[in-house]
């Protein structure tokens, strides 16, 4: 199963570094600015359910679109964002500006990708450069508030460090899992089991009432 993941965020927040860490398990201090977009694939086992056991995990191929961070490149966005299954928003904890721009990125993505369900489209928020904790200028609390405010369900939030490889895997795994669950929800809307027998607890409460 193929999932398209789009990574957005201001330039220099470490999108390419995160990707490189996730896909190649490598970190390099010298990166070059991404022009247009870069594309990487990674296969992973993932389940649609958060507490899934290994049995119902399926092999998914994550097709990750690493985009250019400069604002002007958003005019290329339509082609890049369309058909995305999940969007990862990245900011840098040492740059408040990159956090403030998350709103712009999110709205821009939703208008250009125009997913069928704007309200419940899966986003994952990543606060990168956790290894520079001393220079932190965006509090965790602030980001969590933003995540709670911007969606009907709380956006998953991860603080990562591409350099130290902390939480990178978890963030991408969460993204894949969200995309999978969203996909299955849209594909068939049939609940898993429909019980025709009322649960015994219900029956008991009724009898006691009457």
């Amino acid at each position, binding site marked *: 199963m193929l999932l398209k993941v789009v990574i957005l965020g201001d330039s220099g927040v470490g999108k390419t570094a995160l990707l490189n860490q996730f896909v190649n398990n490598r970190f390099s201090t010298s990166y070059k600015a991404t022009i247009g977009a870069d594309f990487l694939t990674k296969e992973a086992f993932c389940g649609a359910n958060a507490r899934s056991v290994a049995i119902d995990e399926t092999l998914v191929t994550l097709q990750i679109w690493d985009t250019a961070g*400069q604002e002007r490149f958003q005019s290329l966005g339509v082609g890049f964002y369309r058909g995305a299954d999940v969007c990862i928003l990245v900011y840098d904890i040492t740059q408040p500006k990159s956090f403030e721009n998350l709103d712009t990125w999110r709205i821009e993505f939703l208008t250009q990708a125009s997913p069928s369900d704007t309200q419940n489209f899966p986003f994952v928020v990543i606060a990168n450069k956790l290894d520079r904790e001393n220079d932190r200028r965006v509090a965790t609390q602030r980001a969590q508030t933003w995540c709670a405010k911007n969606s009907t369900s709380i956006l998953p939030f991860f603080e990562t460090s591409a350099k130290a490889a902390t939480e990178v895997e978890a963030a991408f795994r969460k993204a894949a899992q969200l995309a999978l669950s969203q996909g299955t929800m849209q594909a068939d809307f049939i609940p898993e089991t429909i019980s025709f027998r009322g649960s015994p607890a219900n029956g008991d409460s009724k009898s006691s009432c009457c």
Partner: protein
Amino acid sequence: MEAAPPPPKRRSVGGDATNTAPETAASRKRKSTDAADPMMRAATARRRSLGGKRKSRGSPTTTDATGAASRKRTSVGDGMTSRKRRSLTSDEGVASRVKRRRSLEGAPLFSPPDKEATPKKASPGAAELSFFSPAASAKRSRAWSVRCSARRAADAWSEHDGWLPSKGEEETFMTLVESRGCPPAKRLEAWAAWASGPSTELLLELSSDAALETQISKDVKRTLRGTPYFRDGDGATYLAAFLRTRAAEDTSVGYVQGMNYVAAFCLLVARGDADADANPAPTARDDAARAYDAFRALTGLCRGYYVDGFPALHRDVRVFSDLLSEHLPEIAAHLEKVRAEAMTYAPRFLMALFLHMLPGHVVARLLDCVLAASAVDPAGGSDATSAVLVHALLAVVAAAKDELVATDDFCAAQAALVRAARNTPSFEKLRRRAPCSVEACRAALTRPVPPPQAPPSRSPQRLFPLPPPPPAAPPTGILQNLRSWFENDEYATDTMRRPRLSPRPRRSARRSAGVELSTFAQRAASPVRFALEALSPAPVRGDNPLSRWV
């Protein structure tokens, strides 16, 4: 009593490293004697059994299979007396063979390892620089045309008067640029001549625009940062100054990512030589000013790639995909199949003028063409620039053809394109791979844009599809009635299915006669049908309800 230590241990110690070669030599020897004559074979067998017996007497504990095997292997060497061994093959021969084999496996044969020659630890940006810099990548290249390009270009330009064409000689001038390029040592001079403009003072101080400065400093920090010139030398200072000055000159464009590579490339052209790239010696003010002229000209020509909305980029990508489906329909269809639209891969090539995609020396030749064309072109040259770049992109895609067609994956197709570009050996090769000429690209760019067609309105999907329309009423007239009667008859159906009676005509005959001749044999099988068809005009195939099923 000598055999008291456990034999397996001794064998494992001796057999692993030191005894391997003699043992193999011994076994080889055994094979050769076995093949030699039956008498000898019998003798060897006797010896072998003797040795085995003796061995088993000495080590009664080894009864497992491996023990037996190793016993068999070692028995020849151990069991033979030295005199007999010498009689089979000369010991010196074996020893020399072993020695030679060891020398081949181990240390170098010709020169002892030299302390001076051991490679120094490469700096992290060395690989990047050797690809990006025109001088360094040319030095590394093995292509013949690259190796002697400097001399050939110098020879070609020695006959030319100056760097600009005289009136009426633009065509020969452009041919010269395209076929030979600039001599690398004179490239800066030539580019400055082609890109002449008002002299500008470089803004070395920080400007007041904080957002611009942040963006520039972010990107300067990651442009060839591993190389000595950009890390320790004044490369970074000039790079920032170029970008800042250009942003101040053309405020509506400002700074866009991709320009940083162009600026860095111009600076490396000003350095001139591969050794200069690798050391942090300062660049002369004069050279930097000329490099800036080239940078301004290039970014000016590609202004449409950087200005808000990227109008020229959208146009070029559209023209590119038209040309792709026109000249390389197979690749275009395949790319469409893997959903790799031109808009996904073209920007990374075009916006950075192929820097980091093609090797530096190839980009240098490409930009020679761009700048020379702009100097010649009365229209300003931005169309000519687009034509050269679109042409190069077509060539890259054509070069990646085999890999592209082999893959079914989007990301793999993208990677194949990048790899094809990176492996381009020379500019000549790139041009030869292009499926059409630069002029054709230019013509396609200047072609008027067709009005956007309204998307075909899709009919609403029905739950149950409508039944197919009823067949048209049969034609009237007695002949037609007769005809339809025959065709609906069982006999007619049978004849139509019957195999050909006459041999199939040769392919050449079929080609020349078209369809008529090939159906002739079928028609001949049914004389009535043939007569009827000869009398009446041939019906449209779809009209006949029967022919639809047969």
